[in-house]
């Protein structure tokens, strides 16, 4: 026992620390050399390491549902169409498309030099195979209801695809960004094959996803600068910031304002609205929220600018309805000022509705989202000024999904709806018979508008209808539409080319080091 003296163990401990410390020195040097090399090699090549907070749910794009997974794997796949930074649809695998006058037949002409990552050429048969799978025409259930509207898919030639719809559906065009997969290959969960600018290299469960540059990408101008992209799974946001500080991570695609402050000027940031709608959803069927004056009073009592300042450090756009200005074509301007903060007017409306002393209101918030919890706290203070006593009820997100979102067992809640490329997907949330109309908004005129928009074939007409729908939601105070919080991407100094889109899309082909 004598040998087990304290000194010996302390020594052992410090030797271990030293051993650990020294053994990494080599890789640091290698990193420095690589950095120097980049500087001399006209800023091409290199690796970019991106911190992701959630893990891949499935590498197969038709089986994956997580937005983060899609954002990563989007670089491996291409659809017939793609989106640009303004949310406009642009050709990708399709060279051009044509819609028949009755809005039922979509004809896509395909590019001829597109190859999959296994070297095989993409033809109309691959598109037919992919769409039949999505639409449930190959004997299985449809993968997404967006494609149920397809009646048949034909491939009259190797590079032409004709899709016929059962009825007019203006939202269908935006659905054509889904990946095209090689026909009769079904091992995507293990080894995904696409036509995108990056090829899948390796996935270590719980650790990282590695993609490598596709030298044979069909679009010459879009061949990536980076040799390799590494998505590292880091569930703890604080760890991601420390990893950025220690140089182990180059990009954090969504950083909090505190994180941004902590990293200071050691990083470069890109910020933009993310086409999200953060709202205080009011259950339009429960008392007293079924009274329009009560809903208007709540809107008048809430100071959205203050919430943006306090919760988002000013990084957010004030909203007036369930629509973000990042979808410019369809956005109705000016609605954000429908209810200017006015405590007296709010009190007056409450008195008219029969609640001169206010009432008690339950605000159910998903506890997993600190941003919404913070918003709830500010709202509680603001509504107290008109006598509405808010009781915040925290609920784990999975429970929230069932109780609040599915069963509408709530009075009010705070949530963020992520953006879609098509206004129909965003605004149908308030259609009476939509199964997830959890605000329980019921308005025949609104239902008709959305129905009309779906069958419209003229874009200007469609935009006009969607604008009217937004105005209706604002005037009826269907809920309190708060803000579209910015997404802030933090990047290592010298890394540039990150683009922002109205959907969560990581476009990595333009990323490059400048120093």
């Amino acid at each position, binding site marked *: *026992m*004598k040998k*087990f*003296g*304290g000194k*010996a*163990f*302390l020594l*052992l*401990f410090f030797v*271990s*620390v030293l051993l*650990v*410390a*020294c*053994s*990494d*020195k080599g*890789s*640091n040097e290698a990193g420095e050399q690589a950095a120097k090399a980049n500087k001399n090699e006209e800023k091409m090549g290199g690796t970019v390491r991106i911190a992701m907070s959630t*893990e891949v*749910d*499935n590498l197969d794009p038709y089986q994956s*549902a997580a937005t983060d997974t899609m954002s990563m794997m989007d670089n491996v796949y291409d659809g017939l169409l793609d989106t640009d930074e303004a949310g406009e649809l642009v050709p990708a695998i399709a060279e051009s498309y044509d819609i028949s006058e009755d809005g039922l037949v979509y004809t896509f002409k395909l590019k001829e030099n597109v190859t999959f990552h296994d070297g095989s050429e993409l033809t109309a048969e691959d598109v037919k195979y992919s769409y039949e799978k999505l639409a449930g025409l190959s004997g299985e*259930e*449809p*993968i*997404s*209801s967006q494609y149920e509207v397809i009646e048949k898919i034909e491939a009259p030639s190797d590079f032409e695809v004709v899709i016929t719809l059962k009825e007019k559906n203006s939202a269908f065009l935006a659905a054509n960004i889904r990946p095209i997969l090689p026909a009769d290959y079904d091992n995507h*969960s293990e080894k995904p094959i696409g036509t995108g600018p990056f090829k899948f290299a390796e996935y*270590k*469960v*719980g*650790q990282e996803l590695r993609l490598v540059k596709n030298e044979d990408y069909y679009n010459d101008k879009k061949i990536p600068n980076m040799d390799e992209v590494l998505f590292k*799974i880091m*569930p*703890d946001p*604080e*760890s991601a910031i*420390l*990893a950025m*500080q*220690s*140089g*182990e*991570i180059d990009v954090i695609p969504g950083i909090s304002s505190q994180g941004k402050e902590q990293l200071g000027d050691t990083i470069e940031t890109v910020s933009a609205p993310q086409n999200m709608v953060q709202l205080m959803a009011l259950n339009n069927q429960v008392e007293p929220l079924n009274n329009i004056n009560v809903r208007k009073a709540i809107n008048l009592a809430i100071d959205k600018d203050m919430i943006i300042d306090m919760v988002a450090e000013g990084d957010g756009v004030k909203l007036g309805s369930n629509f973000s200005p990042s979808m410019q074509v369809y956005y109705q301007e000016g609605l954000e000022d429908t209810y200017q903060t006015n405590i007296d007017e709010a009190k007056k409306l409450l008195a008219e509705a029969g609640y001169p002393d206010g009432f008690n209101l339950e605000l159910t918030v998903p506890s997993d989202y600190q941003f919404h919890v913070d918003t709830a706290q500010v709202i509680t203070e603001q509504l107290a000024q008109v006598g509405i006593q808010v009781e915040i009820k925290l609920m*784990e*997100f*999975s*429970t929230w*999904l*069932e*109780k609040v979102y*599915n069963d509408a067992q709530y009075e009010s809640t705070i949530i963020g*709806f*992520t953006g*879609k490329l098509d206004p129909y*997907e965003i605004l149908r949330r308030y259609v009476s018979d939509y*199964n*997830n109309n959890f605000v329980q908004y019921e308005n025949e005129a609104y239902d008709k508008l959305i129905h009309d928009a779906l069958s419209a074939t003229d874009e200007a007409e469609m935009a006009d209808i969607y604008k009217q729908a937004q105005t209706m939601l604002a005037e009826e105070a269907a809920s309190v539409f708060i803000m579209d919080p910015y997404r802030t991407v933090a990047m290592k100094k010298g890394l540039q080319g990150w683009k922002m889109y109205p959907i969560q899309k990581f476009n990595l082909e333009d990323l490059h080091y400048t120093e």
Partner: protein
Amino acid sequence: MRYYLYKFSMFGITLFMVSLIIFFVFQLLPGNPAQIILGLDADEQQIRHLEQELGLDKPAVERYIDWIAGVFQGDLGESLRYQLPVSEVLADRIPVTTSIAILAMVLTVVIGIPLGILIARTDGKIISVFLSMITQLGISIPSFWFGFMLILLFSVTLNWVTSFEYVAWSDDFFGALRSHFLPSLSIAISNIAIVIRYLRNTILDQRKMDYVRTATCKGLSERAVLYGHVLRNAFIPVITIIGLITADTLGGSIIIENVFALPGLGSLLIQSITSRDFPLVQSMVLYIAVIVLVINFIVDLLYKLIDPRIRQKG
């Protein structure tokens, strides 16, 4: 022999009860796995389709029987979220947690026991008071804070190590040691403090015993009394504590694994609970129950080795 038969039957009954409780408690929790997997915009049809695929449309009792029958055949079912066999998912994670737990335990024993003895021996002196204060800090401060501090010191400030790179032992021994060291140390710090505390207190208690006075009167040196007699008795409660700590760390440290972005059981457990991945959670809880029971069994055996009185009773 009867003792072992008794132990094994208790082992079986406890596992069965654990499996039953965890299965049915999970049924009561709100949250539909299919909806959680598909997210906010899933339509009813998609959800129903996935429910059928995952077997969630069957009655709970039928699912429990299927699952338990599978367990006996070595089939733990399929993870809902990963759509992979549970055994495959666990096989990836268990080595990570086990390595960290073993390294943390080695550090705990190797640092905690000598320091505990040192503090007991120097009881009343300034160094003992100073070390006691430090152990108090070690117990009170949560391990994730140590994790962040170690990263800040070794990775951010000194830039000596990479903190977020997981290396498997089979790939590179020193690389693995490097990637396991800081997380293990973060877990070990508070455990070391606990072991020091316990050891010090029990040594001081034992010293007041009659047998110590007898031994001292017989002319044995303080050292001989300590190492020959006192420590033997003092180790019994410490072994219990070490057993508890080992069971705890082998189940995965949720917070430390998240801090160091390690693909271990702790982070998996949290993810599986939030995504209502029933087969995975059930199997992990069973695994943790087995670990706890096995370690308790080993602790019992160690008692018998150390204390002759227990040996006679057995």
